[in-house]
């Protein structure tokens, strides 16, 4: 039912079931929020979005109050502004106030609000928090002193990621966000996805930085510093420099990385093609030889840790393939090093990832050989932005360059890895070819594209009806896996990406991006796939050459040693 309500003395249309905030958003009236998360049930706890209902004379929260016919609302009356200002002043009363030293300086919702509401003095003095910083995690740094208890991290971790390793602890002025028994995060079930960082309005949550070491390595003449970047970086980095979302700046990225001082610039997408060769072969092997099905992808380290904790009985279902980052890392420090005549210990291998969990993955014990890590440092998209700015590089003035070869050429199938459904699409293209010797007539598998949390398709491969599913957001993975475990669905292959939408929305990406921005990144990947000619991993000439000259064949002895891994059940507090 539609009706009119009065907002700031003007009549506007509203529908029953909408909240005041929904209507304000549609009308372009800016009401500030803190605890609110789009598309999630409102908690109404921070009170930041108060508006005045002039009919009842009460202040109500816009996020959790449904509209009523004939309602009269003032969104910026003196009383409303005063209340919002007081809320911010209260939040600031125990805040550390070290903005100049904070990772989120100039990108902080609390700063923005206090600026908007013209907070100019410390009127309310509270006792400052003195909770220790938790640096125990491989990916995540938690600084609870900066936390304003909005609860967004808690809700994302539970409702979207299905992990729920953090919650409100204690109560009243002593409340803080922590893990069970207030243990350090590295002993919890945290999967390092970084989605909590993406929603945190302040500097309370951030990624673990490897900057200092990286810079000293870049300046160490004895080290060959090489870099690889994930498929989604080229379509998301531009936003770090205030460009519109969805622009592919791949060649500019190459130029910028060389300017920073990286000696060799590789594309992880090459290794995505390599992953596809191994994974497609593994799928066929499992289907033909009665192996464990459904096979489940293993390129997302957030998902892998999640499986090791919550679904240990399904670990045999996980593909044994390492992720593209780790495959490339392993090839660089073995085959490539040998060809170059370099010692593995003299190579410092860096990867740029849209992901915080990749930091954890790189330091897993399984990802080292003879005590040397395959990948030495992982930077997020955000950190790459910082690095480029720190080196005074003007991204608008960089001449486009190509990457280094070998280990640089890629197919557009590999590029699809950046979005949910992309690994599956790329794998099906190659598996089809491996099984039939022919190419798919239509490469694009429409039902597997887009932002939906769970997608399914079935593909006819020479009479075999290959049934596949794709999930993103680990809470969705839980739902699907439970169905599979109960035997209610028969599938051959499942792709899991921890983050909603896949790597284009990973926990290392630009903070503050809208859903539209994420979709623009996705579209940029699809566009690349549409316009390029090498659309399948098995036609990547450098991949073909790597197998001919070094690896032999997929699932061969060398592949097994370098490109595959295993998983173990993890004992953590669930």
């Amino acid at each position, binding site marked *: 039912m539609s009706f009119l309500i009065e907002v700031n003395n003007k009549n506007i249309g509203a529908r029953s079931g909408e909240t005041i905030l929904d209507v304000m958003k549609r009308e372009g009236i800016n009401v500030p929020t803190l605890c609110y998360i789009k598309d999630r049930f409102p908690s109404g706890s921070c009170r930041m979005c108060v508006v005045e209902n002039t009919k009842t004379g009460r202040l109500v929260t816009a996020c959790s109050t449904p509209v009523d016919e004939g309602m009269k609302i003032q969104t910026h009356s003196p009383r409303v502004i005063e209340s919002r200002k007081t809320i911010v002043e209260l939040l600031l009363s125990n805040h550390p106030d070290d903005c100049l030293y904070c990772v989120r300086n100039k990108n902080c919702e609390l700063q923005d609000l206090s600026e908007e509401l013209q907070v100019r003095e410390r009127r309310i003095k509270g006792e400052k928090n003195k909770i220790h910083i938790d640096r125990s995690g491989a990916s995540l740094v938690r600084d609870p002193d900066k936390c304003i208890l909005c609860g967004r991290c808690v809700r994302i971790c539970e409702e979207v990621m299905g992990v*729920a*390793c953090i919650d409100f*602890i*204690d*109560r009243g002025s002593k409340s803080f966000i922590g*893990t*069970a*028994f207030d243990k350090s995060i590295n002993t919890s079930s945290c999967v390092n996805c970084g989605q909590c960082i993406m929603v945190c309005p302040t500097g309370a949550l951030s990624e673990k930085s490897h900057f200092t070491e990286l810079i000293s390595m870049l300046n160490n003449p004895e080290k060959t510093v090489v870099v690889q970047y994930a498929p989604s970086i080229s379509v998301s980095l531009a936003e770090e420099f205030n460009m519109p979302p969805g622009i592919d700046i791949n060649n500019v990225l190459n130029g910028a990385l060389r300017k920073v001082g990286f000696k060799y610039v590789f594309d992880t997408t090459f290794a995505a093609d390599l992953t596809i060769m191994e994974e497609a072969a593994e799928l066929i092997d499992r289907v033909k030889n009665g192996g464990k099905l459904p096979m489940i992808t293993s390129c997302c380290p957030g998902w892998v840790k999640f499986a090791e904790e919550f679904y240990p009985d399904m670990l045999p279902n996980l593909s044994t393939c390492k992720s593209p980052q780790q495959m490339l890392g392993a090839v660089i420090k073995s085959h490539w090093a040998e060809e170059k005549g370099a010692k593995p210990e003299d190579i410092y291998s860096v990867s740029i990832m849209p992901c915080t969990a990749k930091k954890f993955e790189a330091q897993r014990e399984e990802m080292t050989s003879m005590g040397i890590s395959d990948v030495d440092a992982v930077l997020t998209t955000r950190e790459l932005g910082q690095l480029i700015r720190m080196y005074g590089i003007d991204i608008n003035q960089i001449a486009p360059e190509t990457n280094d070869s070998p280990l640089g050429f890629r197919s557009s199938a590999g590029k699809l890895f950046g979005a949910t459904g992309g690994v599956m699409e790329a794998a099906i293209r190659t598996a089809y070819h491996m099984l039939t010797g022919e190419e798919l007539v239509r490469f694009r598998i429409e039902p597997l594209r887009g932002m939906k949390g769970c997608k399914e398709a079935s593909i006819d491969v020479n009479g075999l009806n290959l049934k596949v599913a794709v999930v993103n957001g680990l809470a969705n993975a839980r739902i699907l896996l439970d169905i599979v475990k109960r035997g209610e669905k028969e599938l051959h292959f499942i792709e899991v990406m921890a983050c909603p939408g896949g790597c284009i929305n990973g926990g290392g990406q630009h903070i503050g991006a809208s859903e539209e921005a994420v979709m623009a990144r996705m579209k940029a990947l699809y566009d690349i796939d549409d316009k390029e000619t090498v659309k399948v991993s098995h036609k990547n000439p450098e991949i073909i050459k790597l197998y001919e000259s070094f690896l032999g064949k997929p699932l061969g002895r060398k592949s097994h040693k370098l490109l595959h891994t295993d998983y173990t059940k993890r004992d953590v*507090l*669930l």
Partner: protein
Amino acid sequence: MEKNKTTGEVMETRVREILDRYPEGRTENLIPVLQDVQDVDGYLSEESVVEVSRHLNMPASKIYGVATFYNQFRFAPLGKYHIQVCCGTACHVLGAATVLDEIQKNIRVKSGETTKDGLFSLEVVACIGACGLAPVISINGNFHAKVTGGSIKEILDNYRNQG
């Protein structure tokens, strides 16, 4: 203790017995379950929270969050001497805060905690119904009346000397 079983195993069996009385997955029973566990174990151990979490299908972080919200739950075993400091109205008015402060300084643990040597544990309680004796503390059920910041040391040293 039952034969051939470690303390942990005995505890686990006791927790299991409690959990068997509650249906699986019904999170609304969380508080009574935790109360029962604390009744038999004296505190909520990590192991018991894990058991409860499995039984109710509820993340351990949530259980810890709920349990820390309430004053009644503790996460360390009781000490040999369990000190309860009354902070009811009468005691509050007559200086319970100073008494509590003094005790915390003396045994160097906060309310809800147990000293490393296991000798003392501390708990703040609402009125224990001995307002005439305010401010009052109870140690293993023995009331100490009209305590002051100054008398705490002597009282605690007495227990220390008993070992």
